[in-house]
């Protein structure tokens, strides 16, 4: 006969939407707990608060307050995200300095100036774009 694995049996879990799990939390009761369980069969008025809490803890692991409590995990997650974003920035800087070669000569200031003048002469995007921002009478950029 195959051995019954524990994971195939009903399990205990604390869930808001299922307040009464299939099994008790504590599987094997100590003698004190067993006698407390016997006392539970009588009037509950006779039970002290400590005994009631003990009975609760036999059946359940976490109370609703405990299971609903949030954690500070989000701080670790956010910190980790920001850290790795910073690390990526560091990698980019390193690459720029050590890996990439010179940028094309067409980005030099002189070239850009002559290129821009040519674009203005051609009236590039005169309605709403590039040339529309240039004042052709005063020969300066519009304010």
């Amino acid at each position, binding site marked *: 006969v195959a051995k019954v694995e524990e994971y195939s049996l009903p399990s205990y879990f604390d869930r*808001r*939407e*299922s*307040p*009464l*799990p*299939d099994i008790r939390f504590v599987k094997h009761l100590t003698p004190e707990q067993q006698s407390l369980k016997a006392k*539970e*069969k009588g*009037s*509950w*008025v*006779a*039970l002290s*608060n400590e005994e*009631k*809490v003990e*009975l*609760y803890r*036999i*059946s*359940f692991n976490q*109370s*609703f*307050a*405990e299971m*609903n*409590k949030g954690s500070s995990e989000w701080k670790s997650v956010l910190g980790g995200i920001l850290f790795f974003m910073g690390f990526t920035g560091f990698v980019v800087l390193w690459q720029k300095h050590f890996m990439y070669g010179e940028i094309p000569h067409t980005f030099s200031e002189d070239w850009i100036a002559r290129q821009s003048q040519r674009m203005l002469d051609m009236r590039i995007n005169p309605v709403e774009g590039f040339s529309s921002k240039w004042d052709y009478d005063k020969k300066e950029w519009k304010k």
Partner: protein
Amino acid sequence: MDVSGPDTAASPPAENESPSESGQETSSIPEAPVATRCYSHGKQETDEEFDARWVTYFNKPDIDAWELRKGMNTLIGYDLVPEPKILDAALRACRRLNDLASAIRILEAVKDKAGPHKEIYPYVIQELQPTLNELGISTPEELGIDKV
């Protein structure tokens, strides 16, 4: 808030229950003679029928532990806070099963179910106080397990 339309005769217990909130208005549904509503099918259960059905469920004298668990877990799955009379029946079922822990758990679940509506739970406890005193059930607050 009651969203079921006017019903004619009492309908057999159906799965389309209408929300029944405690602490809010327990409205009585006006019984109009003709029901012309666009339901998916059949008549919709009224709040009173829903409550009565569940009270009867928990009032079964020889209810067993599985039925109690199944009933409670199902009830908590609905989009409503159970009426005190349903909870009263459930707590008495716990008493018959000699299960104090489940009784306290039920109270916790009701408070959790009310969510942001903080006035519901005190109302429920107030309504249940005679039963709690009679059976000797302490509230989670009295036992201190409502705090972390």
